């Protein structure tokens, strides 16, 4: 089969289970395509020899009862993987090889999948374009000059370019949904507490959440049911009844009430986005959903709130990268000198910027004005959603205020870069699940995404809505294999 890499995860699982394909055949196909796709720079670390061995081993004694039998998968390089270098896209962890496995990836391997390699991302997941990675920027398979979004840019690029059947990213302020939107793929940020954070390099602990990135909603549902488990090793993991999301997936969303928040009509939003949103509303209606206008009055404050809370937590979370125990160390005259040199050379500009912002907002004398106030606003934002969910079952918004931008276009304008997260950030602040599905193209032919936001723990509902709308939208990605060598 020459078109193996074109198959969706669900198809591959089906074909392996029915023995039409072996893990080896599938793995070889994805490895070969990955090798021909180096120009995208989607990988930071490749583990092809090992994955081929694992595929052979799987085929020797295939356990076809597993959910991801012998499926090769590359994952974002923010997940710690035992014996395979984990960098978080940073020089400071350039040489770091964990002796342990993140819970989320362990869950995946437990279901039979095998690791192909580690995917590029913004340094410590801080960025919206994958341009802050120490390992260089990633190209969007849609167009050579486009960013793939960020921070899970390697992941979105790899899924869109079919270098991996599916992948996982992490989403702190939009890092799964925005790159999914930029590459015409599906990305789910689950409810905070749904997926364990154990073994994921931390950016902002109260916002970070792992989630699936896939070619379609069904694949996304399948991976979500694999990765979402209660984990005692993460104190913020929540013990709730998790669905078998893929099995319970339905297109019947008749009578579902979908809210349209007026505050998401932001100033200067391109008409294309406005039109996409309108189209989305029509699709939802076509599926039998009821559309209700709602208000999320504190939306305006979400971005500034996020850019206080996230850097504050990051400034503390990244203190452990000090050159003492592991990772990169620059020699210094004394301890302080070593710290300064290690962290100046080891962290890139964006990470340093956020550490400084975070340190500032936590400083005595500023704490009340910034961090404490931001926490209060965060509560108000959450209350907005709670109010809205008294009236609706889900909320529909655009995923991003624009389509993918050009590489280098926003690198010198951090604020304009931050504005890209305007629709995704409130969801993280409120700890809710959100999914981005491809819904159309702009005039340049670049993909655009719609976001469906759910109630906490209600992943099944937004997956169902996405599944129903996906069929109506019938999106096709315009990808030529321009990069394949």
């Amino acid at each position, binding site marked *: 089969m020459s078109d193996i890499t074109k198959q969706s995860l669900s198809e591959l699982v089906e074909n392996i289970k029915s023995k039409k394909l072996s893990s080896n055949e599938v793995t070889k196909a994805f490895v070969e395509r990955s090798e021909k796709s180096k120009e995208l720079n989607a990988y930071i670390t490749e583990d092809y020899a090992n994955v081929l061995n694992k595929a052979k081993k799987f085929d020797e004694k295939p356990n076809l009862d597993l959910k991801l039998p012998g499926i090769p998968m590359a994952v974002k390089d923010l*997940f*710690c993987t035992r014996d395979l270098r*984990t960098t*978080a896209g940073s020089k400071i*962890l350039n040489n*770091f090889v*964990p*002796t*342990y496995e*993140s819970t989320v990836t362990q869950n995946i391997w437990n279901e039979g999948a095998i690791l192909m390699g580690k995917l590029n991302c913004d340094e410590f997941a801080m960025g919206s374009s994958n341009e802050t990675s120490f390992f260089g920027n990633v190209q969007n398979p849609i167009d050579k000059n486009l960013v793939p979004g960020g921070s899970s840019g390697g992941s979105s690029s790899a899924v869109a370019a079919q270098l991996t059947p599916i992948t996982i990213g992490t989403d702190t302020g939009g890092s799964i949904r925005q790159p999914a939107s930029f590459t015409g793929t599906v990305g789910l940020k689950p409810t905070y507490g749904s997926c364990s*954070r*154990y*073994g*994921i*390099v*931390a950016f*902002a*602990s*109260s916002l970070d959440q792992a989630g699936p990135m896939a070619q379609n909603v069904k694949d996304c549902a399948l991976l979500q049911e694999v990765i979402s488990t209660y984990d*005692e*090793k*993460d*104190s*913020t993991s929540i013990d709730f009844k998790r669905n078998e999301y893929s099995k319970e997936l339905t297109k019947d969303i008749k009578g579902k009430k979908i809210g349209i928040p007026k505050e998401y009509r932001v100033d200067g939003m391109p008409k294309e986005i406005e039109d996409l949103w309108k189209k989305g509303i029509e699709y939802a209606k076509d599926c039998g959903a009821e559309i209700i206008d709602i208000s999320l009055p504190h939306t305006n404050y979400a971005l500034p709130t996020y850019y206080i809370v996230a850097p*504050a*937590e990051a*400034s*503390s979370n*990244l*203190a*452990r990268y*000090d050159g*003492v*125990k*592991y990772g990169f160390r620059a020699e210094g005259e004394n*301890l302080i000198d070593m*710290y300064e040199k290690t962290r100046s050379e080891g962290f890139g500009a964006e990470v340093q910027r956020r550490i400084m912002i975070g*340190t500032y907002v*936590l*400083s*005595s004398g500023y*704490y009340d004005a910034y*961090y404490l106030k931001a926490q209060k606003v965060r509560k108000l934002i959450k209350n907005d959603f709670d109010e809205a969910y008294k009236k609706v079952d889900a909320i529909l918004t655009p995923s991003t205020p624009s389509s993918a931008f050009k590489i280098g276009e926003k690198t010198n304008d951090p604020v304009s870069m931050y504005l890209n997260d305007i629709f995704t950030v409130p969801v993280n602040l409120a700890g809710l699940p959100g999914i981005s599905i491809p819904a159309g193209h702009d005039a340049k032919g670049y993909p655009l995404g719609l976001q469906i936001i759910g109630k906490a723990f209600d992943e099944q509902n937004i997956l169902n809505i996405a599944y129903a709308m996906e069929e109506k939208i019938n999106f096709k990605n315009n990808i030529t294999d321009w990069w394949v060598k």
Partner: protein
Amino acid sequence: MSKNKSEYLINRHDNQYEVVIGLEVHAQVTSQSKLFSTSATKFGAEPNTQVSLVDAAFPGMLPVINEFCVKQAIKTGIGLKAKINKRSVFDRKNYFYADLPQGYQISQFKDPIVGEGKVILDMPDGQKEVGIERLHLEQDAGKSIHDLDPKNTFVDLNRSGVALMEIVSKPDLRSPDEVNAYIKKLRSIMRYLGTCDGNMQEGSLRADVNVSVRKKGTKEFGTRCEIKNVNSIKFMQMAIEYEANRQVDLIEDGQTIDQETRLFDTKKNETRSMRSKEDAHDYRYFPDPDLLPLEVSDDFIENLKSEIPELPDEKKKRFIEKFKLSPYEANILVSDIETSNYFENVIKKSDVKLATNWIIGELFAALNEKNLEITESPISAGNLSKLINLIKDGTISGKIAKTVFEQMMEGDKDPQKIVEEKGLKQESDPKALEALIDKVIDDNRDKATEYKSGKVKLFGFFVGQVMKVSGGKANPQLVNEILKKKL
């Protein structure tokens, strides 16, 4: 009157200064594993052998609260008669140091697990109440070792993440003696509870000492200095004495005191400035987003209350009421749990009054001489109890008992056996005594005649002779009785 006598004041010229002291005690929680990880906490292990990925702050590692440590902290709070906060919050205290792998210490800042409480001190001139401001849980840091290599510092992370209780007193202490009594009482309460072993040599109990002085009679507090990390009561007392005098000298000299953190140099016996208020760290405290607020239910607290043993104050009261001990005796016997356990074991089967005297007198002196703790006593409670019974039932005299006791100290021998083997049994058979006495009277006819003619003082001579002839074993009471009849 007596109150004034023990008042600790510093005199300079015509001025009298009072010393105000508050303590921040760091007590290591007795627990098999650390506050947020499952690593062991054994003292004296090889460096870096009790370190988990969490303790060493590897990427993606997360803290998980150790429920046992929470229980220990709440129990301690109950022992301090303190308010238990059903909701408390763990914060990050951010600073860089080589032995602080996370780059922050997880502590409790605004919302500690235990609020206000109190400790009662028994001072020579009566009881004194010392207020407890709060108790919170926090992680210990690792240890930096600077003297193993001329250029490098070594780091041992065995302590990293070990659970500590920081117990903050109100500024209620007024003298080095009160500090001594306070630390001992706190230690005693925690040892009764089994929440901290109080071992200062192993660093299980350390304190930051806040000292200020003010002219006697003044209401306002003076500017305080904090003496960091003092690890013995003696050093605390020395540091306070030095520091209080230093501050008084400055005031008398017309200078002001800078609020600062100081170190106590145990070799030079002086405190030295470590950093001024201006140089104080900005720890950027904020709630640890890896941990949810700690919430405990009323039931959880009630269950722990039911596990609280009788504490020193209550035990003292019971000893006084039930056993008619003097407050002095009771204080000594309850001061640590092992002593009180020993005492209660001895009196299970023997006379309380004799047991009290023997423990506080002979036993303590003998242990002191050998530099032994009560738990290391060569004489078990059971054997001491037997010895006391031998005295009580007249088998041996008090004097012989001391000989037997000395032999028991050489090894835990059954006093009954010693008495038998050495033939130390008291002679209480009237017939045998009569024979003895007859012989003594016979041998001293002239003295007997003198006695009968009115020289009653000679009675003592006859008692002495009988005892001598019996080898000290004659029952003195019976000897008296029989002699009186015979003479």
